[in-house]
């Protein structure tokens, strides 16, 4: 079996298990069988095994971390997002409904990645830097945190729109959900800030300047500023929970555009590294 066949099989096994986990969560929460939530968590966690193995096979096959292709980037982003989701639900079991939004989002992200070109690319010498590892790692953590925050925002909007049901009632009140939405966004803000900082130090090392108004650099700043606007608006203007939720969704969309779409739209130094 070739490395790629093995890697693809492991990836698809992970997708199947994540989908099984999502279905199990849906069954447990929508049909009021809370005792099944634990099983759903285990099924999802089982998906991490083939997923981790696929990433490891990839690492040994190409000799570098998952930061060169959409295929690698999206797969590893999904891994981080699923781990963050499971850790949170394990710590706060009453938040299991979050999986109903976050898990399908993660599966979509991974599915999209698996349908892109997986052909390995050589690692240019400029990408061999510890700062790049921090830059990429914190970006993945930011995407994971944003995914959780947008999941919480969707749940919040559902609650504010008068949605009811066993799974929604299991969650704390809207004010607590809103606080968690902001906290996840806050963690995303920390990770995004670190991503920009580490990227700037790496850019100075590689290109002789820590900031060059490259389109993707600038879009990452725009995302950061959008989060700053939301957080300031929340503090200064006491915006309502609904506005916070929509603002969170907008920030998430902006971050996804910055990381996954804009490198292909605007000519940028980042485009070459992320085909």
């Amino acid at each position, binding site marked *: 079996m070739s490395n790629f066949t093995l890697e693809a099989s492991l990836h698809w096994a992970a997708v199947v298990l994540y989908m099984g986990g999502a279905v199990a969560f849906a069954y447990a929460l929508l049909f009021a069988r809370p005792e099944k939530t634990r099983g759903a968590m285990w099924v999802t966690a089982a998906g991490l095994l083939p997923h981790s193995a696929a990433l490891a096979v990839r690492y040994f096959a190409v000799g570098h971390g998952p930061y060169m292709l959409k295929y690698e980037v999206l797969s590893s982003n999904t891994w981080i997002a699923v781990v963050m989701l499971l850790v949170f639900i394990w710590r706060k079991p009453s938040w299991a409904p979050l999986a109903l939004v976050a898990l399908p989002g993660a599966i979509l992200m991974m599915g999209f990645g698996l349908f892109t070109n997986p052909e390995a*690319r*050589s690692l*240019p*010498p*400029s990408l*061999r830097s510890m700062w790049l590892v921090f830059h990429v790692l914190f970006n993945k953590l930011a995407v994971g945190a944003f995914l959780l925050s947008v999941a919480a925002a969707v749940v919040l909007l559902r609650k504010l729109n008068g949605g009811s049901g066993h799974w929604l009632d299991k969650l*704390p*009140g809207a*004010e*607590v959900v*809103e*606080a*968690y939405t902001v*906290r996840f966004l*806050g*963690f995303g*803000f*920390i990770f995004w*800030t670190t991503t920009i*900082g580490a990227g*700037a*130090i790496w850019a100075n*090392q*590689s290109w*002789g*300047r*820590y900031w*060059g*108004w490259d*389109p*993707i650099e*600038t*879009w990452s700043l*725009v995302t950061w*500023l*959008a989060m*700053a*606007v*939301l957080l*300031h*608006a*929340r*503090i*200064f*203007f*006491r*915006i*309502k929970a*609904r*506005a916070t939720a*929509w*603002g969170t969704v*907008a920030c998430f969309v*902006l971050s996804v*555009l910055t990381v996954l779409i*804009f490198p292909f*739209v*605007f*000519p940028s130094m980042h485009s070459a590294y992320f*085909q």
Partner: protein
Amino acid sequence: MRIALKKILRSPKVIVGEILALALLCVIGASLPQAGSATDAELARLNNAGPVVADLIKAFSLDHVFRSGWFCAATLLATASLWVVTLEQFRRLRLAWKQRHEPSQFRSAPFQMEFERPAQLAQAEPLLKLWTENRAGVAGSALLHLGLLFVICAGTLRALFSAQAVADLVEGETLPPTATGWSAQWPGLIAGPIRFASPVRLDRVDVNFYETGDLRELKVNLAVSSNGVERQEQVAVNRDLRLSGGRMYVGSDVGPAALLEWEQAGLAPAREAVLLADKGQRRYEGVSSGANGMRAHLRTQVDTAGNQPSVLEVRVMKGNALILTTVARAGDILQLPNGEKLSLRGMPFWARLRGGRDSSLWLAYSGFAFIMAGAVLIFAVIRVDGCVVITPLGDRERVFVALKPQRLVPLFQERFQRLVRQHGGPETVVAMISAPEPARVEDQREPHSCGDNCRGCVRRALTGPCPESRASGVALGIILLLGLVGVTGCGPSAAGEARSLVQRYNSIVAEAYRRGDVKLIDPVVGPKEGKKIAGLIGVRLDLGLTLDSHLLSLEISSVDRRPDEWRVRTREQWRYRDLRIGTGEQVGEESLDSYEMLYVFKKSDEDQAWLVDEIQFISEPIIGRKTPTWAGERAPLRGHAGDKTGEPRS
């Protein structure tokens, strides 16, 4: 006046407006081609988008947003606000840090409960317990804003005092300790040029490649002389060298150099080191200009181990005529017409060394550290003040429990429930307990680092604007931002892009025919069409001919754009003539032809570039020349302009 200005600068509306303005300018700058980073073609396309667009670009400096007055003004205003806010926050931080709590202050706590329990204390006196956790959390906002100030200051100092420089050196060449030794310098507005204290000699370039042709490693070995002593140093990608006067580093610009000597009777030999540029797949090319309008097109290939190449492809052209094509080795002397000579003296490597000087770098890095620390303190370390008062009442005790988190208040509900249970209170505390009215308003507003007794906060909270209208304003802002992204993200028109694709293809293939050089067409032609053109160029070379063609007019008739294929119909007019290799004399008559063509472009699997997969005539070509130059022309030819050499299809 000063107080009023400060008031304006720290007004929430002004601050949020400033951030939005900066974000908007960044969106424009990131979406439109910018002078300095975009290519000339991209800028020209932007300026040719229409008179209204051109006027807008001129009026608002849209093609150099980050150097425009608008951007500077917005940044200046934001910096002034940041300065005022940071000072204010540090003042408040000092007060909040020193603040000692009194039980009375907990009347405004968002979580508070009073209950009775059986006596448990051994003493008759009331017991008071006050505590503060995560005190450092209050420093978050101040640190973050201070970090931003640092970064802005560092950026300003960099723009004023930093300098960048590049020098392309060949192995064995020395960079003198002067400013003029560098090929180019970019000093800041009031900065001097870069000048290292010691001369630096490039001794050897160590380079190697992946099998795919991509650069794997680049190390440059240097000899640095100081006080008559020479020491060996090395710079590599991501590994710089600190020298007195700045730092030296390398990117990935490297390649072989051709050391050439042009000799012409009666003149001193002209020597030139031609730095061959990377064309992908470890292939390097360059051009050297000699006397009498001659120029030598040079090409070589480097192996994966990065050894110096041993042979060099040379094509000498005079005007549009090919004079000589050969493969040369170091030491070879090529004889040219009129007694001229071209000698290849060697092929060492060259590397681009970069110099940089930025004495405010520490300030920028400190700023990054403060921003990150501040963000962590804001969201992960939340200050919580707690209070428990137990008052003995005979065989019972009255217990007052209160918890006052600084922000994200609802997250502390479970914590408060545990605290109540620990002190013998009810098992279930149904919901967050509201504080008395005036203070509650403040607490729900997420007090900032001033703590919860800030009069400014209370006043703003009580007189603040309608939250709903503000929320919709923010949502509108974000939607507008995204809308702008959508609008400005649109690419150029299909016809314009198709025209550039066809023009690029035609100019490259015409040059390939002119030089008799098949390899030139690789970036624009797919395998099917490539084989056809390679055959036609080969046949011409065997006959000792090259084709000199010029596109006189090009009209795009239609563009059928699909995700993986473009079909472009054109009307073209060409002028052709055949030239004899060696002398450049014209063979046969010149031809003026007109065609209607269909180009089929497909995306390359490798780099997603558009390649010509197939070319067809969509109507009978109109051929100017009546007599064929050579027998091969009797065959039906189709494809590139160079294929249309004067004979209609049979």
